[in-house]
């Protein structure tokens, strides 16, 4: 046991020697003193910087102040005898003096009574626990780094001495936007790092830390703040969630706009890029087969003349019936005496016909006469079947022509042509049918009306009119359809060289006789 005591005493002396070098050389000692002068109301003001030291001081005005020798600092641990500490003096601001006592060997977890005497008079008395008056150094090596996440910074530091009580330390981190007075603090216990969240991207932050014991086993005052560390946040950091939502919304809007455009693409195309109308649909094969060569498409070469016109008329409505002739019927039809008026009309028509012979043109243009047509019709009406055995009483034909008193008229002059037929109908119309359209004929015995329901056959060869090469057509109305048989004169024998164009016309007159249009 004696050896153990000697051994402990040797170590104790060794430790005391090492601690004497830093009696008043503690870091920030003046700052700590100033802090306690402001925050600690009790006297003497005491603080511990480690597990083995205690510093007490008090302030005296110059009026009352004396030398350090006048003061006595007496401390007494629980269940122990009193001890005395040497007092030192230090001038302070404002004509004051500070008196200090520093203990280098302390006992924690037991109360200690402290008494200060000045010239034998007790001026201060205080009982405290040394482990409750810790005033630590601020943390060291404060570093602030980016975490990689937007709006976050990571602050790390080293805990101050003493060691082995790290788990009893608590830290307060202060972060402020540079230039702003708004301070934000965060607290962390038993850890020497902290992640700061909710920071503004692109801003610069001042970060600082201070430490204090947590108050369970140890307690004390807040340490001084560390020197601030300035850190700049990454600018324009976008929250990944916001970026993702923005992409989703833009994708949805794009799909909607595409859907609308596709549903109205034809309308929009017509507005933006209107289609230039082309006549290609009307001229099938003109551009695809003949490369736009109209003449070739028309087929002016031999043998194509009669084929091409079909393309003109494929989509046309059926061509109006043009039956014209200048048939010299006087030789055939004048076997019976004509009425005087008819005869006169016929003679007039002959003279006029002779005048028109030279001016008549080929083909389709004709200059028929009104009077001879009327005469013919009257003759037919008056002269029944013997002259024309195949033309029965109920048979009838219709010849339509453009009448002209002054000169040749083109076909299609409708107004005055209605007169001969009108006369015809007026003379012979005693039918019960009140239809006045030109397309209906009714025939009854002696009435002069022509029945449209009777069959009609007209021989092609029995009627060979004189005159120039006119083409005419005979109409056979069977009540269901009307057949047009092309007839031609001898001058230009179309019948021999080809087939005159025929346009089959179907009479779709129902039982109650719908009007059938005719063109004049």
């Amino acid at each position: 046991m004696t050896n153990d005591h000697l051994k402990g005493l040797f170590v104790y002396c060794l430790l005391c020697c090492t601690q004497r070098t830093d009696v008043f050389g503690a870091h920030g000692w003046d700052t700590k003193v100033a802090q306690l002068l402001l925050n600690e109301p009790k006297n003497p003001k005491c603080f511990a910087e480690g597990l083995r030291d205690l510093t007490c001081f008090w302030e005296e005005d110059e009026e009352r102040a004396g030398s350090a020798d006048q003061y006595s600092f007496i401390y007494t641990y629980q269940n122990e005898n009193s001890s005395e500490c040497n007092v030192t003096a230090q001038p302070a601001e404002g004509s004051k003096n500070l008196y200090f006592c520093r203990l280098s060997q302390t006992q924690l977890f037991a109360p200690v009574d402290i008494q200060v005497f000045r010239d034998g008079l007790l001026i201060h008395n205080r009982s405290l626990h040394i482990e409750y008056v810790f005033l630590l150094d601020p943390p060291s090596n404060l570093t602030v780094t980016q975490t990689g996440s937007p709006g976050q910074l990571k602050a790390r530091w080293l805990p101050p001495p003493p060691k082995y009580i790290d788990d009893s330390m608590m830290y307060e981190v202060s972060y402020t936007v540079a230039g702003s007075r708004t301070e934000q603090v965060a607290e962390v216990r038993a850890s020497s790092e902290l992640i700061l969240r909710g920071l503004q991207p692109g801003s610069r932050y001042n970060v600082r830390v201070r430490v204090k014991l947590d108050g369970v086993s140890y307690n004390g005052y807040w340490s001084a703040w560390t020197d601030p560390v300035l850190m700049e946040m990454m600018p324009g950091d976008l929250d990944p969630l916001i970026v993702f939502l923005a992409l989703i919304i833009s994708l949805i809007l794009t799909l909607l706009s595409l859907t609308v455009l596709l549903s109205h693409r034809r309308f929009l195309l017509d507005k933006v890029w209107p289609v230039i109308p082309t006549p290609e649909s009307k001229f099938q094969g003109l551009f695809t087969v003949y490369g736009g060569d109209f003449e070739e498409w028309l087929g002016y070469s031999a043998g194509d003349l009669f084929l091409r016109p079909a393309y003109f008329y494929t989509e046309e409505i059926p061509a109006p019936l043009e039956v014209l002739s200048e048939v010299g019927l006087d030789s055939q039809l004048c076997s019976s005496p004509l009425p005087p008026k008819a005869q006169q009309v016929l003679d007039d028509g002959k003279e006029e016909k002779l005048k028109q012979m030279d001016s008549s043109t080929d083909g389709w243009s004709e200059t028929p006469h009104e009077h001879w047509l009327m005469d013919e019709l009257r003759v037919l009406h008056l002269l029944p079947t013997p002259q024309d055995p195949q033309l029965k009483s109920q048979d009838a034909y219709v010849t339509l022509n453009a009448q002209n008193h002054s000169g040749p008229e083109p076909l299609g002059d409708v107004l005055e042509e209605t007169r001969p037929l009108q006369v015809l109908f007026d003379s012979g119309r005693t039918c019960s049918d009140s239809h006045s359209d030109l397309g209906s004929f009714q025939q009854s015995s002696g009435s002069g009306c022509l029945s449209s329901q009777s069959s009609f056959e007209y021989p092609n060869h029995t009627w060979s009119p004189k005159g120039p090469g006119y083409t005419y057509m005979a109409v056979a109305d069977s009540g269901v359809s009307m057949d047009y048989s092309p007839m031609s004169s001898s001058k230009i024998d179309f019948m021999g060289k080809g087939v005159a164009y025929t346009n089959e016309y179907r009479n779709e007159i129902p039982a109650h006789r719908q009007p059938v249009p005719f063109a004049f």
Partner: protein
Amino acid sequence: MQTGLLPYGPFWLGQGVLTLLLMLLEWTRPGLTSPLRPICDLRVLKHFIEEAKDAEAAMLTCKEGCGLAELVTVPQTKVDFNVWEIKNAPEQAKEVQSGLWLLSQAMGSLRGSITNTALHGQIDNSLRNIFSIGQVLRSLNFQEYPPPGVGVSGAETWSVSSASELLQVHVNFLRGKVQLLLSNAAACQPGGS
């Protein structure tokens, strides 16, 4: 007919079942011999310290019926780190175990002395906490020492005469020596057993 003992008779069957049952109870018995997982979380001790502070505060407000009938021996709570750090772990553990035993004896004496029923709960709680700290020390594989016995005195003990002093000693002892022992326990160090 044979009347000799049969190995599978009812009697032997019952004995077998009983033996098996005892073995199971012995195996599952919660006792000192069963190994405990080290309790290294100091928040457990901090909880006990806070409750001890509450008991001390409650005792300060007691006016009547809260005195000790006799002097009780309590451990010294002051810690000189220069001396403490020189001691090895077994010595520290012995000092802590002895002090806890003294405190439990003193708490028991206080429980019988005070008549204020409101403080009975506080005292009982403190007694349970002292027992729990013993379990924590056991979990940290500290060697168990026999109690010093009644009437022992030494440099590490002193006597108190009031309940408030007793509870103050209780708090200081937990905050000091017990906490230093647990925080530096080898079983809780990285790589320690």
